[in-house]
């Protein structure tokens, strides 16, 4: 069967291209690792200078922050300016005055949280806090990991598939194979299957690394996540080959990235869109990545099953089929029949 001939040829070609294989398999893992390192290593204890304060206060503060004694406000101010500390406290009678650096909201809220804990201590009964999903220890990376994993699969598959199909065109071999009885859909499907193999391996590697290597929270089924990832990758594979039909060279293909790929991550739910303008919400409904992100979050963080996310799954499959069909049509540019 000719579909398989094309798939086999692609596999043979790519097997000889060690660098591309390295990019396919290693790059997503590398980027995912970097992001996890950045997002989980956020400092948990603020550095605070105390100029004058009751001893009891300082003692309690020391259990929550790195406290240093400063002799004057000038010294504390200089430390704050040099970013050696995050805040300083000066007591005016019994009322503390706190000065923060303030340029980084995450540090600001860290300091504020610490000081709030200090003031609500002991007097009140601590509330008991329950989580429907997730936990108190869940960090920014943990909640984003499912989306990031899906996105990197989407992005790298898009790149590789797009460039590979472009090469077929630029080298003239697309024209050449269209001068054989090969049907257009056979090319599209052949590419889909040939790259599908590498994409599947890539997906499994990244998923195993994220779940077991980076220990992202995972309460759902490994296989359900794999199904979503593979369907998401299929859509990206089809999109990459489709868009490469509209690019004359690699440079033009890369120009699609800021238009087609970057917005996908922005609107996929990684940022809360509740208060964003209507157009943003509509955009997020258009991008396939949104459905992938939602399904991955539901399964990994909320322990839902494939049945629960069937709507997202169907949308993803629909997108993949749509892109494949459009791709077959786009090839009409190269041969009418």
């Amino acid at each position, binding site marked *: 069967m000719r579909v398989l001939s094309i798939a086999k040829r692609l596999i043979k070609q790519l097997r000889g291209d060690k660098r591309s294989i390295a990019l396919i398999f290693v790059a997503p893992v590398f980027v995912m690792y970097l992001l996890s390192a950045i997002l989980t290593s956020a400092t948990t204890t603020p550095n605070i200078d105390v100029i004058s304060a009751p001893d009891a206060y300082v003692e309690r503060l020391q259990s929550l922050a790195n406290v240093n004694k400063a002799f004057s406000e000038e010294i504390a101010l200089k430390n704050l300016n040099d970013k050696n500390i995050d805040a300083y406290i000066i007591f005016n009678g019994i009322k503390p005055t706190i000065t923060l650096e303030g340029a980084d909201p995450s540090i600001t809220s860290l300091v504020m949280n610490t000081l709030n804990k200090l003031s609500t201590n002991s007097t009140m009964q601590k509330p008991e806090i329950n989580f429907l999903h997730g936990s108190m220890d869940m960090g920014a990376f943990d909640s984003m990991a499912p989306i990031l994993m899906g996105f990197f699969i989407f992005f790298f598959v898009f790149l590789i598939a797009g460039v590979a199909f472009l090469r077929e065109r630029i080298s003239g071999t697309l024209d050449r194979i269209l001068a054989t009885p090969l049907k257009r859909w056979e090319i599209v499907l052949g590419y889909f299957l040939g790259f599908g193999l590498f994409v599947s391996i890539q997906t499994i590697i990244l998923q195993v690394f994220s779940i077991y290597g980076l220990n992202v929270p995972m309460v759902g089924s490994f296989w359900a996540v794999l199904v979503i990832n593979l369907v998401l990758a299929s859509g990206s594979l089809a999109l990459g080959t489709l868009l490469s039909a509209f690019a004359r060279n690699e440079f033009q293909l890369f120009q699609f990235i800021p238009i087609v790929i970057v917005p996908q991550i922005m609107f996929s739910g990684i940022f809360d869109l509740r208060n964003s303008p209507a157009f943003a919400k509509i955009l997020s409904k258009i991008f396939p990545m949104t459905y992938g992100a939602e399904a991955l979050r539901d399964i990994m963080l909320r322990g839902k099953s494939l049945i629960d996310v069937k709507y997202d799954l169907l949308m993803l499959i629909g997108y993949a089929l749509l892109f494949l069909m459009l791709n077959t049509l786009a090839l009409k540019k190269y*041969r009418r029949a």
Partner: protein
Amino acid sequence: MSVENVIEIEHFKQQFGKFVVLENINLSVKKGEILGLLGPSGSGKTTLIKAIVGMSEPSSGSVTVLQTKMPSLYVVSKIGYMAQSDALYEDLNAYDNILFFASLYGMKGKPAKKRADEVLALVLLKDEGKKLIKNFSGGMKRRLSLAIALVHKPEILILDEPTVGIDPVLRLQFWREFERLKKEGVTIIITTHVMDEAEHCDRLALIREGGIIAIGTPQELKEKSGENTVEGAFLYYGKEGEVKSI
């Protein structure tokens, strides 16, 4: 329409947007004939060839190959095509390139491998089969392209400037092969810039300014124009600027 004619082109016109490349082309090619298409670059030789191979559809008029109106995927399998630029997979070896194209024509297994060996030997690349194409010279790539065009034993061979960039010795070998195929009944259409090559063709069609300005055997063209060479005839007809058929 004569049954003898394997290719029949009638009132063919091809335009891209508003730009008319070829107009009012009428041409028929007999079985076992070697037809040369001569013309300056940009005259539309490749455009005509792409219509015969079924890659494009004429804007008007018709192209009939083996009694079937093109484009037809069925007839495409009877045509061997060698494109102007070598369309080969650089990161595969010669053998795999041939086997891949063979599989597109539905050939597989032992027969396909046997045929691959045959065509490799035919173009004197028997010992280079396992070499990657990126390590091939220009002439070797041309030879492999010819081997691929021959792999499915086509009845019609369409060669777009097959001898560009190859040395005279190799060119001679190519032409010997073409003559041999002709004896087997293969019909060959060949485009060329090389005028002494044109002498080997049974008939020549001179393409210029969007039309066929003259057609006939090399001898006829020379006699009619009173020139001693095909090159002279070509220049003569170019000056006249009107279509004459012999």
